[in-house]
């Protein structure tokens, strides 16, 4: 078949492209609106995303990022490690400092051992009066 026939066919096809169905347009627009950042105020746009985006792995981290991410998620997230860090630091302080004073306030020695003195006792006594 002649080249000009092919060109004419292609030109005609270009003039009348297939149109997306209305329901596809509606779905795409709904997604776009759901993912659109809210109107920007003084502090810039505020996300109003209602759908969960696919997880994005930062380039260069590869398997380690996925493994560590899963590990952290399994333990309850990276916040758990922050809390553990605080506890460890406080423990170190108590271990380094002389804990005698603390023990004197909260515990009393009896029969060669320590027993716990209810700290709330005096307050509860006051309520009773």
């Amino acid at each position, binding site marked *: *078949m*002649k*080249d000009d*026939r*092919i*060109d004419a*066919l*292609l*030109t*005609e*096809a*270009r003039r*009348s*492209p*297939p*149109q*997306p*169905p209305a329901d*596809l*347009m509606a*779905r*795409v*627009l709904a*997604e*776009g*609106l759901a*993912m*659109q*950042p*809210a*109107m*920007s105020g003084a502090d810039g*746009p505020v996300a109003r995303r209602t759908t969960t*985006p696919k997880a994005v792995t930062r380039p260069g981290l590869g398997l380690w990022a996925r493994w560590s991410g899963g590990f952290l998620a399994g333990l309850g997230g990276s916040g758990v490690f922050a809390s553990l860090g605080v506890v460890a630091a406080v423990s170190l302080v108590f271990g380094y400092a002389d804990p005698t004073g603390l023990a004197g306030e909260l515990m009393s020695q009896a029969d060669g051992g320590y027993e716990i003195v209810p700290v709330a006792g005096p307050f509860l006594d006051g309520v009773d009066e």
Partner: protein
Amino acid sequence: MQTARDWGGDVGEAGVADEALLALYAAGDPAAARLIAERFLPRAYATALRLLGPDRAEAEDIAQEAMLRLWRAAPGWRAGEARVSTWLYRVVANLVIDRQRARGRRGDAAALDEVEEPSDGQPGALARMIEGERQEALEQALAALPARQRQAVVLRHLEGLSNPEVADVMGIGIEAVESLTARGKRALAALLFGQREALGYEGD
């Protein structure tokens, strides 16, 4: 706020440049989402359909996925880095390739001899029917081309991109685009040769 022209890029029918539309969308302008969908979804859908063949459901999936990626990319879009339309065509082309690879399909369109011959009718109706048959035959012939030739012909001749733009989308040189489109058109002519009488091309 900057005007649409300040952002550069393609200016659509609404008079707002593509990049400006993305910036308006990112700023929360509710009208921008509709304009973006109306401007880009038809291109994404038509390209996906023409690259995939007659599977409209698959073309819808790919067009929707491509638009989803555009919504995601819009807030971080950097002006001047890439043309929005080129970026979208590349996404669609890659999604089509992925889909075809996943299904192990290679341009398995329906046979050209399945195109029905036009029936008798009024001259105007007959002309429209013949035109419809021609377009259907063209779609099937396109689907029968090797993937790269089909991609080059669709982008160059049906989507109207320039050779450098097609080269950018396909990640190849301009000479390679010219070669692919030329071979693609020759292949189309060969594929449609057997249908020339049914399609009203007598004497070719």
